[in-house]
């Protein structure tokens, strides 16, 4: 199946660490991921494929490469797999600012890391992950604003944050990254109501959540809809 978006759990953390190591130069020890999910359990999200176990040929090849017998074990011995048929292809790792050296008047959320596997790009996965994380930071943690850093050369990310998600660039931080590259420090003010993910669906109609869906469907005529 294609990509599903859901809240992250401790079971996703090893795969998240793996995706981070695969995609980005800024890496963290596993304990740092544990620290996130155990300090702000509702703030991080993952994109996973569901039921996509790959072709049988792929599975056999993986097993052979692993040097074991030919039989396919329950979960593929591939660091992307959370469980059988569920591969992690993107994540957003988020937190609240808890750095005592940076006391801030306003409650501030922070995006520690976001990435999507290259072969799953151009489906809006990063945007969907971010929308959930921003909504959660605001709703659950009462964050009034959220901050993040982005590499100056990362045009795709900059586009997502600035144009799609409407972050503002606060300043350029010189040599923020280990390799000497500068970072844009970005910020967005949060408003829970405005962040409702359904607001960004641009649906022709809205689910009122109360009416009898099935009765409506029958009234509108099932056959007609099908055609």
């Amino acid at each position, binding site marked *: 199946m*294609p*990509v*599903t978006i*859901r*809240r992250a759990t*401790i*079971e996703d953390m*090893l795969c998240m660490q793996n995706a981070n*190591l*695969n*995609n980005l*130069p800024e*890496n*963290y020890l*596993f304990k740092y991921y*544990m*620290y996130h*999910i*155990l300090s702000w*359990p*509702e703030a991080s999200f993952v994109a996973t494929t569901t039921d*996509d*176990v790959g*072709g049988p*040929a792929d599975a056999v*090849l993986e097993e*052979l*490469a*692993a*040097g074991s*017998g*030919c*039989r396919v074990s329950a979960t593929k*011995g591939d*660091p992307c*797999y959370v469980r059988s048929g569920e591969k992690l292809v993107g994540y957003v790792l988020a937190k609240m600012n808890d750095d005592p050296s940076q006391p801030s008047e306003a409650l501030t959320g922070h995006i520690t890391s976001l990435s999507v596997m*290259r*072969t*799953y790009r*151009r*489906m809006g996965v990063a945007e969907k992950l971010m929308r959930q994380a921003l*909504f959660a930071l605001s709703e659950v*943690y*009462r964050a009034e604003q959220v901050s993040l850093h982005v590499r100056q050369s990362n045009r795709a990310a900059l586009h997502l944050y600035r144009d799609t998600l409407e972050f503002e660039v606060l300043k350029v931080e010189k040599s923020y990254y*280990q390799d000497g590259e500068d970072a844009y420090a970005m910020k967005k003010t949060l408003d829970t109501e405005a962040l*409702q993910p*359904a607001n960004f*669906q*641009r*649906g022709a109609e*809205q*689910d009122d*959540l109360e009416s009898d*869906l*099935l009765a*409506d469907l029958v009234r*509108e005529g*099932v056959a007609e*809809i*099908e055609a």
Partner: protein
Amino acid sequence: MSRRKGALPLKTNGSAIGRSKEDNNLIEALKLYEAKTYKKSLKLVDTILKKNSQHIDSLALKGLNLYCTGQKEDAASYVEKAITRIESSGASPIGCHILGIYMRNEKRYSEAAKWFQSSLDNGSTNKQIYRDLATLYSQEHDYKNLLKSRKLYWEEFMGYRANWTSLAIAHELNGQLDESANVLTKFEELAKGKLGESEAYEHNECLMYKNDVLYKAAGVDHEKLRAVLKHLDEIETDVFDKYGWLERRAAVFMKLNQKVDASKVYRTLIKRNPDNFKYYRLLEISLGVQRDAKLRLALYKKLESFYPRAEPPKFIPLTFIEDDTLFAKSLSSYILPQLKRGVPATFNNIKPLYKKNVSRYSAIAEEIVLKYFDSISPKETPIPYVWTCYFLCQHFLYLKSFQKAREYIELALAHTPTLVELYILKARVLKHTGLLAEAAETINEGRKLDLQDRFINTKTVKYYLRANMVEKAVEVVSIFTKNEGAANGVMDLHLMEASWFITEQAEAYFRLYIENKRLLHDEKSAEVPEDEDSQETHARRIRDLTYETKKFGGLALKRWDSISKFYKQFEDDQLDFHSYCMRKGVPRAYLEMYQWGKTVYTLPMFIRAMKGAARMYFILNDEMELSGRETNDDTIEEPVSAKKGNKKSKKEAAAIKKRIEEDKKTVAAYEKDEDPLGEAFISSKTPLQDFYSQFYGSFSKEATESSKDYILDFEYHLRCGKLALCVGAMSKYAEIYGKKDSILGAMTLCLLDRAKLSKKIDEVTKKIAIKGLERLLPELPLNQLDEGSFDWLSIFPQEFEGPSLDALLLIHRSTVEILSAENIKQQIIEKLREEEPAIQSSVLNYQLN
């Protein structure tokens, strides 16, 4: 989240006046230890010990200080001395406490708990020890003692919510759900109206936790479930975790069979996250539309109009539309917009359909996409053109039409040679056709097009490793690692717990080990040449190959061991959270971690490393058995010494030494490592025990009936000579895969072989095993066991299916001498004809020697 490790009881029993000088000095030394000035503390302890070399507390503190300054061996000996003295002359609370801290540092948690407990038993009044104890009992999953210590601590410090929460959790872990809920309720009553805004989040988590407990306790009891619902209503305004709250509400409605109510909650959840497949599936169930295809489709159309940018309402209908025409129409409107946009995962998105029914879905998809392909022009619509080629290549690759797959990817590459994804896919096609080196070079071309992207870097490294090109892989991977003070990125990848790389590298080393061993064998069995020069070349080659074989084998085991160490670390990483999560007020997340923590040694990457290491250790074991001697006595340092005194050989020896030193630098995984090449692993005289202590022991402890690997279990016990346990594994295996399964047949033959021919297994063991086998498989011609001429392979296909390739390979690697090895080999080669090239070459190169 720093935690003060080991706060010591600076106030010992009695007042300062009545204390001896020794004790006073010890207090001073403890203060110095607390301040982390270990060396000063050591100095002071030494002055005490100079006067009284048997002063227990000082011996213990000296051990602890030595430990903290990295002198672990000396530390152990002082701790040993302290313990011996305690055994003869009793203990002081302070000494026990110090020993507890030492043991905790050493990660010997159950011993640490024992010493902390002794400290209390010997009169320590330091109540903080209860919390330390609780942490240790949590880590050790000792629920009974956990509850005791949590309770005692709670009684002392009732003013902290953390202590109520921890007590509730301890009750739950002991199955006392009502007690758990009561503790939580009592605190809520006490705190009513007194909670500030900064505590609101913790309050929300604890309220939802109580609802968890009530829900668990309710089971299917409707009255209790209604109480859970009522509780949800009561806490609604205080709960910020709306996902948790709504999901619980829906679940209770479903259990109460109030499906319409449940459906409304699922609609609310979908509105919050329209991209979660699970909510849509649950909505279907709550609406009861699964059997009515028309209504079901209409529902998804409706949902799509609510959420046009969401994936599930577009995709899910494809999984149930029966009518081919309608399906083709829907599939077309699912695939084509993605191809037009250039979505790389278009094929992956529909791959599960192929898995479900390859002939139906692949035919329809092929027709749609080929037709579309004919309608577009590479010049006018370049993006759809190239991504359609990309799709078709994946489609044909899935169908194993390698030629066609190749054609489409070449078309795409000729059109847009700057697109990285195309190189990744071409490399995959080449990999499937067995061209591993070409695949690696191809993907490397793609990497050069985007040097900033780590994803393509990672992929390239993986392909180089699959092609056994380790040096090239290390060179490329090191572009993104931190390499200060190291020859390359290998050390950084170990530091950052990069399992993917270390596992792939271990497997590459293992393959190189097999290759070099074969070359060595060939060289050794070649005729010794007559003239001196050729003799020397021959000898040098043997020496080189001996070195390489051992090096690669050692490195493979070394890397797998690193994976085992990571998982040990992940287990230990939990320690701090047993009290951190209580303070933070996140009982639900904590319990999830706690359950997860009990399964770390059954996670996929640990299992992959375990299986790899098993192959290597089994080979080492089997070689030892076969040669009847303890092999591998020659160390790497001195491979086959040449004629002594010879100038040339001296020069050669120097060259070898230099090469070994260089090797040690380039493969180094840890900063201070006395054995970077893994010599200790490869030279082991106890491969099976090593396998057990690094992998199998931890795995077996955590594996459940369903997550256990019975083939591995069988192979391990076969080599240990524990035939009864082999039969046990077989019967579990048969429960899952049936009594006709081909692998079961292979296991039977392995077992009969040992029962008939093994000299190291005693007769009683053999008889018990045969009896067990008879009970498991009564139809077996066991009366033939004493005959010499029976063709045991004939139990296939009479008693078992096959033999399959897997079954034959199992027999092959188990050296079954009641069968002709040559015959088995021939059958394997025969079977391989049905497999794709990549599998053929993998089996031929790495499993058939």
